């Protein structure tokens, strides 16, 4: 713990150490003055103002949503893409704790943190769309709605947030140095991981199942009874790619925390994840074509939406599949990292295609998000990044806590 000149009491010094990373308050505040933080402040101020307008004046004041397009960017990107990209938590947790590939342990905590914050801010984005956040617990206790897929999604997100919090608790208790709690929560890891995989399998596919209710509204090339399977498999791809992408960014931004990591070891892990992603991408590519065959929609491939479908499948599924495979053969972590960006964009494109771009594809009037919808989305992502940074700077996520050497 940092030494303070005698003006602080013990609990104040402890709190200052935890919040200000052992720095005097003035020095800590001066350290916050950076170009990134300045831009983030502007984004947060605009976001807070738009949040006020949305919650006081309603959706019409801040969105282009209509009765024909009740779901827009906040559902299509914040919820659907957010949940898919947060899948790295259950993928890495099951890789390490269930499949026993302990080499990947250094990536588990960042993945779980990314997953936890991802789901948390998905709920924040959902609250913007719902408009009455105090009613969020209604499916839990007041009005279940068991015939709706949304009932499953609501319960699962709530339970999975809890599970991810429990999985991240070891890092929190190491930070707080509460040995007994750290020990007890460690016993929950396997059970939490198993429960998390069960939950994720269901709710990742359930988000796709929501669109089974709209067969005439989603374009036939994207609408298939296999949508739940496609959403689950693409979530695994998204999770693996986000872990690769996030580890690349973290190693650059938090360089001081990872300088003791063996770069060759990290590269091996990244290449291993790239191989897994390439195999799952190939499987997904094959299943997409089986979906087209099942629906017998070959003639639709030669329409504008068909070309868009071909772009998604060949440019953002097959291409990253072969790029990953090529990178694995060449042992090139850099190419794996580049491909992860392409893959993440592909998953985002797929979710937006299903929920917005090809939704109500046969209507003349099309939906395009208003600037305020983009601004709120950027606001939510920015707050998520700031939260991630706050936690990683303080808690043992990228680095080990020397007081708990046997934990790993």
């Amino acid at each position, binding site marked *: 713990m940092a030494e303070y000149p005698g003006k602080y009491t013990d609990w104040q010094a402890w709190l200052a150490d935890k919040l200000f990373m052992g720095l005097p308050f003035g020095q800590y505040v001066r350290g916050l003055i950076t170009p990134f933080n300045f831009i983030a402040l502007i984004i947060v101020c605009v976001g807070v103002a738009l949040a006020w307008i949305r919650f006081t004046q309603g959706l019409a004041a801040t969105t282009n949503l209509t009765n024909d397009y009740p779901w827009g960017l906040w559902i299509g990107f914040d919820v659907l893409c957010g949940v898919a990209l947060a899948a790295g938590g259950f993928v890495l947790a099951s890789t390490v704790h269930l499949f026993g590939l302990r080499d990947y342990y250094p990536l588990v905590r960042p993945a779980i943190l990314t997953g936890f914050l991802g789901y948390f801010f998905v709920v924040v984005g959902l609250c913007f769309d719902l408009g009455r956040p105090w009613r969020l617990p209604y499916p839990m206790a007041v009005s279940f709605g068991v015939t709706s897929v949304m009932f499953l999604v609501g319960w699962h997100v709530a339970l999975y947030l809890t599970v991810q919090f429990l999985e991240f608790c070891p890092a929190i208790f190491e930070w707080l140095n509460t040995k007994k709690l750290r020990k007890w929560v460690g016993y929950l890891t396997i059970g939490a991981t198993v429960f998390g995989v069960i939950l994720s399998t269901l709710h990742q596919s359930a988000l796709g199942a929501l669109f089974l209710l709209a067969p005439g509204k989603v374009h036939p090339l994207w609408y298939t009874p296999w949508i739940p399977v496609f959403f689950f498999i693409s979530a695994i791809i998204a999770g693996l790619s986000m872990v690769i992408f996030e580890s690349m960014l973290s190693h650059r931004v938090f360089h001081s925390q990872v300088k003791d990591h063996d770069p060759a070891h990290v590269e091996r892990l990244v290449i291993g994840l790239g*191989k897994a992603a*390439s*195999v799952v991408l*190939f*499987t997904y590519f*094959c299943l997409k*074509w*089986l979906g087209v*065959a*099942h629906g*017998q929609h070959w003639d639709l491939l030669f329409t504008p939406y068909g070309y868009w479908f071909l772009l998604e499948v060949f440019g953002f599924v097959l291409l990253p599949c072969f790029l*990953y*495979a090529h990178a*694995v*053969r*060449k*042992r090139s972590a850099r190419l794996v990292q580049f491909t992860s960006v392409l893959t993440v964009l592909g998953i985002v494109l797929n979710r937006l295609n299903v929920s917005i771009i090809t939704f109500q594809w046969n209507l003349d009037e099309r939906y395009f998000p208003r600037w305020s919808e983009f601004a709120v989305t950027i606001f939510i992502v920015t707050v998520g990044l700031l939260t991630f940074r706050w936690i990683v700077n303080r808690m043992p996520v990228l680095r080990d806590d020397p007081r708990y050497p046997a934990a790993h």
Partner: protein
Amino acid sequence: MQTLHEYMMATKSVEYLMAVIFLGAFILFWRFASRKEG
């Protein structure tokens, strides 16, 4: 059903055929991804 095409469309045998082809392609892809260059 008069033609092979109509028969295959009716029995969805195209999907089974594609599944077999994809399984073979998957095996080839796995071998491709597992081999190291150099």
